[in-house]
């Protein structure tokens, strides 16, 4: 116990180091490909409370292309791709493409300060899957994982790992889905 208490101060300093650590590491570039889902099926349900204390139901977004992103603040690639999701939302949000970012296992007290560090700060809905049950239902195996739901409510694309969501090729894929 004595050792633990003495180390506490050291840990506080190292918390900062941890935030720096993934940035310094030689991380791979974010890619921008979406994988078409071979046999598109209806998306699993998604009905969660947002940061604004509103219930957001994926079913009510039928007719739009919905980018569903599962993430957490402690996940380095999730943090890296978050600004590109906002850029995407700003570019095509008024064309029928929306973004839902589902945070896994954290609460507003943790997520809100993080969002303040993202530039540009997200304006799309941030939803809370506090017990990870939605994550399980969507068969996510690693964070981040992103699904694209077509206007017909079926899963159209999937991306495992960080992406550059505002890359022109990726935006084209989403807009083409809107035209189908």
């Amino acid at each position: 116990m004595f050792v633990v208490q003495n180390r506490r101060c050291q840990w506080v300093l190292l918390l900062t180091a941890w935030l720096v650590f993934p940035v310094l590491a030689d991380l791979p570039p974010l890619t921008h490909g979406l994988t078409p889902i071979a046999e598109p099926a209806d998306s699993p349900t998604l009905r969660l409370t947002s940061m604004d204390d509103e219930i957001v139901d994926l079913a009510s977004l039928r007719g739009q292309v919905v980018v569903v992103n599962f993430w957490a603040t402690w996940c380095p690639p999730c943090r890296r791709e978050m600004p590109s999701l906002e850029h995407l939302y700003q570019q095509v949000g008024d064309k029928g493409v929306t973004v839902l970012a589902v945070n896994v296992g954290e609460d507003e007290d943790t997520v809100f300060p993080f969002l303040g560090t993202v530039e540009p700060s997200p304006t799309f809905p941030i939803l809370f899957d506090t017990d990870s049950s939605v994550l399980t239902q969507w068969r996510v195996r690693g964070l981040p994982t992103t699904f694209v739901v077509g206007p017909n409510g079926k899963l159209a694309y999937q991306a495992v790992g960080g992406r550059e969501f505002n890359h022109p090729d990726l935006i084209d894929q989403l807009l083409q889905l809107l035209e189908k």
Partner: protein
Amino acid sequence: MLHKTPRRLIPIILFLLWGESAIAQTRTVDPETGSVTWEIQVHGVTLSLTQILPDQARAFYVNRGLPTTATESYAKSCVYMTILRNDSAPGAVHFRLSDWSVVSTTGSQPPIGAATWLKRFEADGLSQSARIAFRWAQFPPEQEYQPGGDWNQGMLSAGLPPDSEFDLIARWDVAGEPFEGILKNVRCAK
């Protein structure tokens, strides 16, 4: 040119060429933290291990609400930030962590997966949020990466004492065909 090469040398030449292009393991040291990264690119897949120093692991999980008893045993279990990416494999890369091998002088065993650690932590009474953070911060126990850039980054516990040395044999399949990549002489952080 080839017709003048003795036939018995062709397999050797091909092996050398393949070895040169496919198994070029790199080792880099982060000047800020001293953490070492080992990386290979093989069969269109990139695999890398970056040492997570015990204090970094402690800090990360204490901040996520794990009890110190739990973080202490995990932090000393030879932990790496692990990246596996499908750059240009001939199809979807599928793996199970339980098929991988950590080979050291003490024997060979798979890395210690999240489920095993969470079972060990049962007596520590982890909160739901701590349990979720631990589980999802770990490298996936099973995953499939499509070509063109699917990847994950997660923590992997080799389950060895600090400063141990080992080879990691990562195994995966593409449409049922087995492949492997080996990171040699990987060292646990002290």
